[in-house]
């Protein structure tokens, strides 16, 4: 049972893909749009989990890496009319290069300095777009992945097309990330995370391993950025505010930073909270002020409660409890 191998797992992803496909046909357009947003967050949050949970590095600047991916995608698409798939690959590659540079800097910096640098990146980088006309300034550039192929039928909407692309990309990237984490690299990261000196003694090049983690994480974030700009149709600095980087961290914490398999929880929560808040506000009929602030309050409260009471995430919590139960039964 422990040796459930890559191939079987692949089957699991294919099955989930099929379920998503069926779902996409059954729900209304708003849900499809939200589904696409969830898929985008799944990709983005998994990049944080990889970096923070597995390699132990902090980034407040993943919004900026997403922006790199998004701008790379849109420029290649608009200037060179690259096919959609290639567009996303380019986004991944260029964001990964950015991540490698950032990772090289990160390897020199300790905790708070790294947080500071990445925070500054999250604020500074997107506004670079205002400096170069090719980046479209504050208003941004429109990103068009084209209409769905006519063979999919009349009723096949644009959003369903986005959903398909985003969900497929999410499944593929999750599968890849899960496999990377199980590989030698993943083990090295975890070794370096828990004890750098010990890892170095056992022959792991810790700083190279950290840079690699940053690079891969950035590539995944770049994909998320390209997907995000596809669903909103526009690439602009305002699509990548500081709050985006913060939300990703929030999502990662809600998912449990050290467990990739919880990633859905964070993504769904981030997308669902505004709606839940809206429903709660209408149901109990609170003041208008509270209504506007409710989503923010809910996210913050949830975040604080999670850090305090389920610090390693619901999945890890569940696992520990199971392990404890098993141990008790053994005795």
């Amino acid at each position, binding site marked *: 049972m422990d040796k459930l191998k890559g191939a079987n797992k692949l089957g699991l992803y294919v099955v989930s893909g099929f379920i998503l496909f069926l779902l996409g046909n059954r729900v209304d357009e708003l849900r499809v749009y939200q589904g696409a947003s969830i898929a985008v967050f799944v990709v983005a949050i998994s990049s944080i989990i990889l970096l*923070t*949970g*597995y390699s*132990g*590095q*902090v980034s*407040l600047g993943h919004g900026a890496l997403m922006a790199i991916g998004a701008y790379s995608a849109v420029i290649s698409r608009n200037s060179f009319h690259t096919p959609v798939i290639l567009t996303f690959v380019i986004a991944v590659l260029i964001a990964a290069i950015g991540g490698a540079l950032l990772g090289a*800097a990160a390897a*020199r*910096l*300790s*905790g*708070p*300095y790294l*947080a*500071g*640098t990445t*925070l*500054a*990146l999250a*604020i*500074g*980088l997107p*506004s*670079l777009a*205002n*400096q170069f006309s090719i980046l479209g300034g504050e208003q941004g550039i429109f990103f068009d992945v084209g209409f769905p192929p006519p063979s999919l039928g009349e009723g096949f909407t644009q959003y369903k097309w986005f959903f398909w692309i985003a969900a497929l990309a999410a499944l593929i990237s999750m599968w890849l990330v899960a496999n990377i984490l199980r590989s030698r690299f993943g083990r090295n990261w975890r070794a370096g*995370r828990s004890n750098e000196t010990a890892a170095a003694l056992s022959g792991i090049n810790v700083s190279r391993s950290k840079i690699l983690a940053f690079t891969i994480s950035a590539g995944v974030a770049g994909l998320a950025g390209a997907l995000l700009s596809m669903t909103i149709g526009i690439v602009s600095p305002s699509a990548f505010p500081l709050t985006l980087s*913060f939300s990703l*961290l*929030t999502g990662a*914490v809600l998912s449990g*930073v*050290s467990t990739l398999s919880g990633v859905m929880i964070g993504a769904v929560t981030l997308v669902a909270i505004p709606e839940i808040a809206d429903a709660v506000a209408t149901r109990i009929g609170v003041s208008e*002020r*509270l209504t*506007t*602030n409710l989503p*923010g*309050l809910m*996210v*913050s*409260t949830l*975040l*604080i409660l999670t*850090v*305090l*009471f389920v*610090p*390693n995430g619901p999945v890890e919590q569940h696992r520990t409890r199971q392990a404890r139960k098993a141990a008790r039964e053994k005795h």
Partner: protein
Amino acid sequence: MFQLLNTILIGITAGAIYSLMATAIVLVWRSTRVINFAQAGMALLSTYFGYEAMVHFNSFWIALPVAMVGGAAVAALIELVFMRLLVKRSSTGPIAAVAPIIATLGLLGLIKGLISTFWGGADVRLVGPVTNIGYSIGDKTLAFSPLKLLTLCTVVVLMLLLTVLFQKSNIGLSLRASAYSPEIARLSGVKVDFVRTLGWSLAGASGAVAGMFQTVNGNGAFSPESIEFSLLLISGFIAAIIGGLESLIGAVIGGLVLGLVVSFVLMYISSSLFFIAPFLILLIILFIRPQGIIGVKAARRG
């Protein structure tokens, strides 16, 4: 010449306020090894306390101490009920590296949300104690007024008081000892938990002063979404990092460097570089000195 002088004056005034904010961040960092992203939110809340006092007493000189005491109390409360629990519950595992960051970010959101719920999103006003009409030289009027002068003086006085407190008093010795080695401090009879709370309170009060002066030096109006407070968050943090996080003098230098360089960039290069300039300054400085201008080489733990 007029332009150059104005650039310097604008930079120094802004930098002085950033210094105060950076000081608050340094104080918290030294006492609990936490980067407090909620500091600007706490400063905002303190400024609202100041605003309430202003409404009742119509005097800035009552509002300022009210804001400081309020800020100190809020900070102490947060340290007592929140940070202690956090340290206890999330100091191990992969979360340990991010838990304080996440938690204070969550706190920032919570504070801002509560403020917006309580006071609403509309602008409210503070009035400075002296005029903001600039001094004139010849036929030109500078971007430097009695209010700005007062701001600088307040910052200088406050920094001097803090320095004296830290260097010359037993409380200061306890604060420093607890920051550098909580265990030795404890064995020497310092009530480290209390000292940590005290460190947070001092930070809360400094942040309150920064918030009050940041507001009156703008046009006096502020709201939970004010750019003034986003600036405090970002610039205070960057100034603290530039300064090396460990010393008050570092915070002051960090703030002034940031204020001046940003002012020059905006004046002589482009106003739209507003958000990139601090980032570039930070990158350049950290590239040369990864531990900040006045930082300790290896980051201490514990």
